[in-house]
């Protein structure tokens, strides 16, 4: 069964139900019920018209649910006349759904969950598994999110930046369990890019493609992290890189720079280097300067210090690092790296061990512990 096709139809079907007069929360429940039924029924009996099937089943689910409500709510008028499907406005519908699911009144975790379900067409169970929480918890998070946005109007224009932040969060969650969240984020960003012409949407899509292209080389067979400089560049996905670069160049040509385009430009410069030694660090530092100007984020300044260390030598990197708050995540790890490059192996080993204790995830902790061990094991 083509689950990707099924999922790609979700926002469209949801939009049709809403245009027929269903309120968003009820329509979204009905589409979810239809998806679950499709996952069960389609493998044995694939429909000739998948979208028509989904609309019919979702509308029936909506009617069933509403009928059981009507005694209370007295809304027979809406229920009994089934309007013809409206004109094709699927692109606009999809766009409005993105805005609604990333509504500023939602917390990030709620916006992520609602986007994956209502736009992504994932089931509550899949989303719960991906984020390692019980299904009942995720169901509750989604239903609260829907209540929060229920007062927002479906046709209000939204803010693209909030949508991009949600998609970026999904992408960065990476991979856990059966569901590939990075690939899902790319699919949703592609769909968004088809619905709206915006250089930052293109920038985020390029950024995702360029990072995704390196995925196979980012972990060793035993699951440990492989840093960029040591990755087998032959395993980078050249087709994804070419696509990412092309999308980025078209976006940059429009001269409306934003943080995602700048981040993608840095990723493109890495992708461009045949070997780690060929990396154009001078240009990368320039892009970090742009990013600092655009975001003024301490994390960007930290990454910039690494780039400065490569472009102008470890002493210059350490000087850039000294200007930053040393409680920043990964600050100690960067210091360890720069001190090692500067030849102070003993200090680097101590700092790597300290950085391991401060690591925010297991893979990084293991990597940093190995770095300390590597230096300590030297004769």
């Amino acid at each position, binding site marked *: 069964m083509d689950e990707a096709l099924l999922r790609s139809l979700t926002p469209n079907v949801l939009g049709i139900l809403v245009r027929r007069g269903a309120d968003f929360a009820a329509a979204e429940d009905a589409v979810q019920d239809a998806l679950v039924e499709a996952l069960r029924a389609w493998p044995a009996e694939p429909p000739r018209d998948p979208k028509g099937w989904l609309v019919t089943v979702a509308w029936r689910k909506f009617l069933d649910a509403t009928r059981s409500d009507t005694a209370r709510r007295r809304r027979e008028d809406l229920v009994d006349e089934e309007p013809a499907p409206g004109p094709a406005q699927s692109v606009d519908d999809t766009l409005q759904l993105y805005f609604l699911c990333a509504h500023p009144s939602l917390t990030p975790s709620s916006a992520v969950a609602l986007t994956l379900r209502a736009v992504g067409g994932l089931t509550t169970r899949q989303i719960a598994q991906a984020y390692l929480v019980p299904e009942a918890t995720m169901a509750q998070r989604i239903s609260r999110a829907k209540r929060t946005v229920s007062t927002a109007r479906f046709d209000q224009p939204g803010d693209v930046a909030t949508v991009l932040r949600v998609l970026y969060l999904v992408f960065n969650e990476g991979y856990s369990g059966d569901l590939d969240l990075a690939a899902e984020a790319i699919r949703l960003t592609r769909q968004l890019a088809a619905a709206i012409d915006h250089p930052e949407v293109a920038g985020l899509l390029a950024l995702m493609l360029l990072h995704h292209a390196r995925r196979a080389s980012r972990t060793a067979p035993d699951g440990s992290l492989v840093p960029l400089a040591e990755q087998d560049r032959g395993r980078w996905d050249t087709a994804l890189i070419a696509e990412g670069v092309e999308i980025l160049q078209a976006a940059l040509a429009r001269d409306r720079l934003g943080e995602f385009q700048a981040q993608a430009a840095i990723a493109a410069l890495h992708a461009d280097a045949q070997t780690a030694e060929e990396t154009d660090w001078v240009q990368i530092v320039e892009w970090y300067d742009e990013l600092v100007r655009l975001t003024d984020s301490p994390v960007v300044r930290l990454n910039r210090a690494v780039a400065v260390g490569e472009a102008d030598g470890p002493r210059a990197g350490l000087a850039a690092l000294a200007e930053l708050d040393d409680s920043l995540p990964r600050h100690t790890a960067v210091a360890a790296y720069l001190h090692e490059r500067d030849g102070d192996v003993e200090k680097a080993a101590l700092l790597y061990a300290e950085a391991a204790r401060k690591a925010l995830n297991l893979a990084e902790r*293991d990597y940093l*512990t*190995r770095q*300390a*061990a590597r230096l300590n094991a030297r004769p």
Partner: protein
Amino acid sequence: MAKYLLLKHYRGAPAAVNDVPMEKWTPEEISAHIQYMRDFATRLEQTGEFVDGQALAPEGTFVRYDGEGRPPVTDGPFAETKDLIAGWMVIDVDSYERAVELAGELSAAPGAGGKPIHEWLELRPFLTEPPTVTE
């Protein structure tokens, strides 16, 4: 079936036999250790005895209520805190003996010199729901 919590301590457990901090191992020994832990969890998943496992960061904060309308008080980490949990694994097994057997295997994970760490793991039974049949 009975559920047990296997607790690994950063501090607070008696010292392991092969007690060398990880950054003093060789990189290969670290890899062997991580592989052992991963294989152990996979094997328990296959036997249907694995429930959950998580690692914790070493630094935590103590928090307490400070009265109506006031933000909670936070403090710590306290240097004198004797006990510091590094992580846990929850297993669901048929007997106490099986739980002890598994904890013993986990404690045999290789460390410095490729030799078992013999670290002390704490085994704590979960309090269960009351049974239906009580007489």
